[in-house]
């Protein structure tokens, strides 16, 4: 590797922890080359980015797949620019790939700016501390959807596989079968839709499957006089 490349490699290694992703690397390179986003020379940036990827590989540093995706995107972009297609990539065309890259970078730069704005605000628990409170339980008024989902997630972590199997479908066929059996303990004949408590399609499908299963094990007989007419379940 040439001396310049080695140099760059070290520079990147020093900077590596602060890169948040491939777009962050590109912004760094653009700034280092004193380009502006509006007046961007793509080819040198592409080359330097690829050199970065290469040096990371040489050093056996694991790169997130996004960095490699970006590399292949940039190679494609560079080939577009080098091919003598006669098309002018001057930034005026909406489908212009350079323009697309610029927009990505502008959006990312805006977000980087916004996150540094956020970080510069006096943050609670970092710069300002609220009057202490010993409450650890969740106040009802502050409950969020996230709390609910996380509760389920923690549950899953505790009881493993079984939970998700059960939770995956809100309508278990076994439960509907139990319901049908309950109904048939007082009536000899019920309508299939009596076993459905909601109006949801998934539950109706579940009820139908439950009926088929019960018919298979000879618990019920299924009766339907005409196509699309009412389906009855009769106790056997």
């Amino acid at each position, binding site marked *: 590797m040439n001396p310049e490349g080695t140099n760059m490699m070290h520079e990147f290694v020093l900077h590596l922890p602060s890169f948040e992703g491939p777009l962050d690397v590109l912004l760094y390179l653009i700034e280092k080359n004193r380009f502006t986003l509006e007046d961007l020379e793509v080819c040198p940036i592409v080359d330097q980015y690829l050199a970065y990827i290469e040096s990371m590989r040489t050093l056996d540093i694991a790169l997130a797949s996004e960095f490699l995706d970006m590399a292949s995107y940039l190679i494609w972009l560079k080939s577009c620019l080098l091919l003598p297609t006669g098309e002018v990539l001057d930034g005026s065309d909406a489908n212009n790939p350079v323009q697309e890259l610029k927009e990505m970078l502008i959006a990312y730069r805006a977000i980087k700016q916004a996150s540094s704005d956020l970080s510069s605000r006096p943050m609670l628990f970092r710069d300002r*501390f609220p009057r*202490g409170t010993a409450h650890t*339980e969740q106040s*009802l008024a502050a409950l969020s959807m996230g709390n609910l989902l996380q509760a389920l997630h923690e549950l899953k972590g505790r009881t493993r596989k079984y939970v998700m199997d059960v939770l995956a479908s809100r309508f278990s066929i076994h439960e509907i079968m139990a319901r049908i059996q309950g109904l048939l303990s007082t009536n000899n004949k019920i309508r299939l839709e009596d076993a459905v408590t909601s109006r949801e399609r998934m539950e109706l499908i579940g009820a139908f499957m439950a009926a088929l299963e019960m018919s298979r094990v000879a618990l019920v007989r299924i009766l339907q006089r005409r196509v699309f007419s009412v389906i009855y379940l009769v106790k056997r």
Partner: protein
Amino acid sequence: MDTREIIEALIFSAAGALASREILKVVPDISEGDIADAVSELNGIYKDSGRTFRIERASAGYMYVTLERYAPFLRSLHNPSRLSPAALEVLAVIAYRCPCTKQTVDTIRGVDSSSSLKSLLKHQLIDVKPGKPMRYVTTERFLEVFGLTSLSDLPDLGQFEELFGSE
């Protein structure tokens, strides 16, 4: 910066009582006696400027309390009802699986859920569906609390697990 003020800020921001040794860790070169002096000076300042709180010495350390004469107002302050992590779990199971029996909840959670069910019933977040076996459903109040218009608004569990399950 005045040591006394640092001590004030420390006790102020602590959850519950703050032990002297915690203060000594943060503010070096002072003694227990210095802390006691600072606290009594602070209480003097509060008294003179008509403040409604004081720092009190409790067995576990120093803590802020409001003066007794304000208690009637504080008592009438709506005491926010709280939900334990267990109750939240039960609620989540019922939301995604309703109507369901206590047995289903217990099986999924691997523990008995009686007290959580009671607390959720009390908070009117769940209700009992008529019929046998006894089954639980979430209520209108549940929808209100979580800003849902119906249960079908519940986020997709699979998508959430994709995010959280990637460990």
